[in-house]
């Protein structure tokens, strides 16, 4: 076990993948000598050279489109979009090209590319640098979407994403970059599509991903002091997501709270709640509650942003409500 920060785990995953496979290249804005806006590619330019760690101009559409073409032509590109808010500029390449190629070309080949992008607030980065837009991508057949909450998952999911034969979006929470955690030695890939039991419990299930995992754990901690044992299930993969694990947990707790930082309405939690209102209906002893952000853009000023973002208190309150 090695202790390191999420950001270092990401760098390590990129480095290990590039070491293992010469077809892995990196593309992104200022990811080269500068090491990336958040430092995720630090040292890689020096180590692997400018042909494999490519600084791109500020041109997200072409950057992601080029990743598609490169992936169709024998490379495994890992593209970085600096803030998830900027995927708005690359949706065509993601949705109409990367996601569709395998199916639309009759299964000839897939598009083995990865897109890394940070989401989430907490830095007072304002309405255009804080959004959580993963629900969009989960709605697109052909894309996979993962969102790690720990350094080990940041490493493991990224390795799996790079090895995957289809396009995978790795959504990273920028507020977690500095968080420390253990990496197994040797570090291991984490399979896409499997949830992680972050804390067992019997009274209610809190389903969450990304930064919300940490709020959920804190909430569970608080609830435990009241005698409520909440189970925290870290989804990790959002598309595909681990329906079996959610059902299994629900079949024990019979109460479900879904928490994420994204706007609640039409968010990732909606699909999970909807699915559980179908296949898990008979297990439900209470309404499914969601804890997500209110329906406005992310505000800038710290007190507004703090009030806007979901947190442990809101999650704990929701758990209490499902038990009331």
């Amino acid at each position: 076990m090695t202790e390191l920060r999420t950001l270092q785990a990401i760098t390590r995953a990129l480095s290990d993948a590039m070491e293992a496979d010469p077809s892995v290249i990196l593309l992104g804005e200022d990811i080269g000598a500068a090491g990336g806006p958040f430092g995720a590619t630090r040292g890689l330019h020096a180590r692997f050279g400018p042909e494999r760690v490519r600084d791109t101009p500020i041109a997200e559409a072409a950057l992601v489109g080029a990743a598609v073409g490169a992936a169709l032509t024998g490379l495994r590109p890992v593209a970085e979009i600096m803030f998830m808010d900027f995927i708005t500029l690359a949706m065509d390449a993601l949705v109409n090209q990367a996601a569709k190629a395998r199916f639309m070309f009759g299964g000839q080949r897939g598009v083995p590319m990865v897109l890394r992008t940070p989401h989430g607030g907490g830095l007072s980065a304002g309405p255009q640098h804080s959004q959580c837009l993963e629900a969009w991508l989960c709605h697109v057949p052909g894309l996979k979407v993962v969102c790690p909450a720990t350094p080990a998952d940041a490493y493991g999911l990224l390795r799996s994403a790079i090895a995957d034969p289809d396009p995978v979006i790795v959504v990273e929470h920028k507020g977690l970059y500095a968080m420390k955690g253990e990496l197994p030695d040797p570090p291991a890939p984490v399979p896409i599509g499997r949830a992680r039991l972050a804390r067992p419990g019997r009274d209610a299930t809190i389903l969450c991903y990304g930064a919300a995992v940490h709020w959920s754990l804190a909430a569970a901690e608080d609830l435990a002091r009241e005698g409520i044992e909440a189970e925290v299930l870290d989804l990790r993969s959002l598309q595909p997501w681990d329906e079996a694990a959610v059902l299994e947990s629900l079949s024990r707790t019979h109460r479900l709270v879904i928490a994420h930082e994204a706007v609640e309405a039409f968010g990732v939690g909606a699909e999970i709640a909807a699915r559980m209102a179908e296949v898990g209906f008979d297990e439900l002893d209470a309404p499914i509650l969601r804890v997500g952000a209110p329906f406005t853009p992310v505000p800038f000023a710290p007190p507004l942003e703090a009030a806007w973002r979901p947190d442990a208190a809101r999650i704990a309150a929701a758990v209490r409500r499902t038990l009331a």
Partner: protein
Amino acid sequence: MAEPLALYRTMVTIREAEMALARLFADGEVPGFIHLSVGQEAVAAGICAALAPGDSVASTHRGHGHALARGLGLRGFFAEVMGKASGVCRGRGGSMHVADLSVGMLGANGIVAAGAPIALGAALAHRTRGTGGVAVAFFGDGALAEGVLHETMNIAALWRLPLLLACENNGWAEFSRSETQVAARLAALAAAHGIPHREVDGADALAVAEAAAEAVAALRRGEGPRVIEARTRRWRGHFEGDPQRYRDPAEAAEALAHDPIARARAAFLAAGGDAALLEAVEAECRAAIAAAIEAARAAPAPRWEEERMGAYAPAEG
């Protein structure tokens, strides 16, 4: 250099295949909508003649000619456009998505200009992998209004990638004259990016092929991207069934005067070629097309229940 008879064969294949599609479409045997490149065959033929196995092509909504010139087989082609299970894309893509990755044909594309960054990425892969290959992005004159084309030019120029930007300038973007759509001349834009630009008569297959050969050789020498702009004519509507009310009949008639096939035929004969050879080629093309159409007709319709492959690779093991 491209061999005149080979170019002729490619052009006749495209012409005959698309005219057959026009009939099939009118008869209800082709679903959806199709955009024909009739009249523009010399561009696809000439450009693709300069390519070698392993090179990559990204195309447009008007991509039949590019696909066929790149070597996508007639049977898979017709079956695809006619929506059959034996189609090169199993009937899932249709006219706007014909693709054969095994010959480096990265797909026709329903999104204007979207092929350009894909070709850019292919060129990047060729460079990075050291394959010696090149990539071609076909695009229309109307596509110059799309930002991503400019992003692509910029990156190709900066990174000196082996990318051939092949513009089919047919004067139209759907129902609009492209001069009402695009202010800049491509020559000037290319020059601004430091990309060598060459204009060719897109009705002259030999001229296109010569320009393409020269450009591709430069690409292979690592000299950075090139632009070829082929002035060409759209003989038919934007899509089949387009009544073309917007079109001046004189302009439409003038377009027909630029027939790349008639021109190639005349040049071949003037150079002392034997008409019988041309006729043999034509007969072979027609026969192959007829056979492909018959095969497609006979092929089963795809059935959803039998479609095991979804949007993702099947899980391993």
